[in-house]
């Protein structure tokens, strides 16, 4: 049986975490969604877990460790070098985009202002970047 799709969302905003979960339950009901509240939390969870998520969505402006620093950290680790990490931020500021690419982002999505665009953007990212199931190349 195919492994379910594992998605990690790193976001300090509880509302955004709720919106994301709601969206995923609509477009990808079988997916397993994990949450981290900031970069530091995400790194600790990634270290602890037996498995590796298939794709990560990460916010930028977070306390403790922001999205840029999280990206830089995980791009230094061999096992997470190729992992698709999508920046998922409210910011449409070109500087934030440039910094994200430099830090090693796979893609950059500005959080949608309505449900339709939120769904569309997440779905597109999943289709574009998550590896065909089942696969294990990103697993530990």
């Amino acid at each position: 049986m195919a492994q379910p799709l594992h998605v990690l969302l790193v976001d300090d905003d509880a509302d955004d975490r709720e919106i994301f979960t709601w969206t995923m339950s609509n477009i990808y009901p079988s997916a397993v969604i994990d949450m981290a509240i900031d970069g530091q939390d995400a790194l600790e969870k990634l270290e602890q877990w037996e498995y590796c998520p298939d794709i990560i969505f990460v916010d930028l402006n977070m306390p403790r460790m922001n999205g840029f620093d999280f990206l830089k950290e995980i791009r230094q680790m061999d096992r997470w070098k190729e992992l698709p990490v999508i920046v998922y931020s409210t910011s449409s500021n070109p500087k934030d985009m440039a910094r994200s690419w430099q830090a090693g982002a796979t893609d950059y999505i500005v959080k949608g202002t309505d449900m339709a665009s939120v769904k569309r953007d997440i779905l597109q990212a999943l289709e574009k970047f998550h590896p065909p199931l089942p696969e294990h190349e990103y697993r530990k």
Partner: protein
Amino acid sequence: MELASHSWLAAIIHSSEDAIISKTLDGIISSWNEGARRIFGYTAEEMIGTPILRLIPEDRHEEEPAILERLKRGERVDHFETKRITKDGRILDISLSISPIRDNNGRIIGASKIARNITDQKEAERIISEGRERFQKELEATVKERTRELGDLNTRLARSNYELEQFAYIASHDLQEPLRKIHIFSELLEEGLTGQIDVSKLNTYLEKIKGASNRMSKLIRDVLDYSRLSRADQSISHVSLNLVVKEVLHEFELVVAEKKAVIEVDALPVVRGISPQFHQLFRNLIGNALKFSTQQPKIVIRAEGHHIIIKDNGIGFPQEFAGKIFDIFQRLNSQDVYSGSGIGLALCKKIVENHGGTIKAESEPGKGSTFHIFLPA
């Protein structure tokens, strides 16, 4: 003919503007024309047979032997600029041309000198050179002043540019956030109303919408407060910081009672500044100290001269963020736990800088924070 030319030459010498004087090789004057009288004030009778040294200021007496030496060697002295003294003691600037006089056998027997009074010319040169120097100095001062003004303007421009960038960031990020939430949760609410109605879920959506619109109005208010600080239209007066703190604490009465906060206020200075801005400064700092606490808040406000210290026992922050916390929209804590627009401390910094002071913070997570405000005396 020879006689005629002799008297002709004598007439030329007599009517010359310049002093034409002859002297022996011992430096004794042997002839003295009308020009010499006009320039030096002595008549021919007074001067002929007396030493030329009479005309030379004491500090230049060594010039004469040197001149005589050159004459004896048959050399001329051309346009030698020096100073000579008149009968009434005035010192003149003189240009001297001296040539040896030879007898029929070519032997040097004396010297003829033409002395031109160049005092006026020298004075004019001095005035021109002084004028040039003064002009140069004034020009340099003006350039310096303009450069300084340009520098100041540049700094102000850079600052306002930076603030503009921050405002662009507000538009692109912080104002978007609540707006997005309002829109999306309204959609979810709508969807919920058409399907199976889960009232508690719908209520949470409504709460989220209200929360987002509250955040947005607070943000707009704070941004406006911040932008108003740029204007210098508020009047400067003597501000008693004790009075300011007293009034601010009055505003926080309810929170203080609810949290059972202990607040100690020592003697604070009276400073010159904009009173409403100091209210805002203490409102933000005391508000933060009350907000970022997990236990019973204890706040101490004291001063050492114009150094004001505000210490709390709140959650604190890692010292490496001490510089960043004063940046606009720099949030160190999750919005879920500690609400806020992220402008408060940026506002504090701007207020203190408006008054020519500096603000810094030191802290350790869990050990409380201390804010230091240094105001000019």
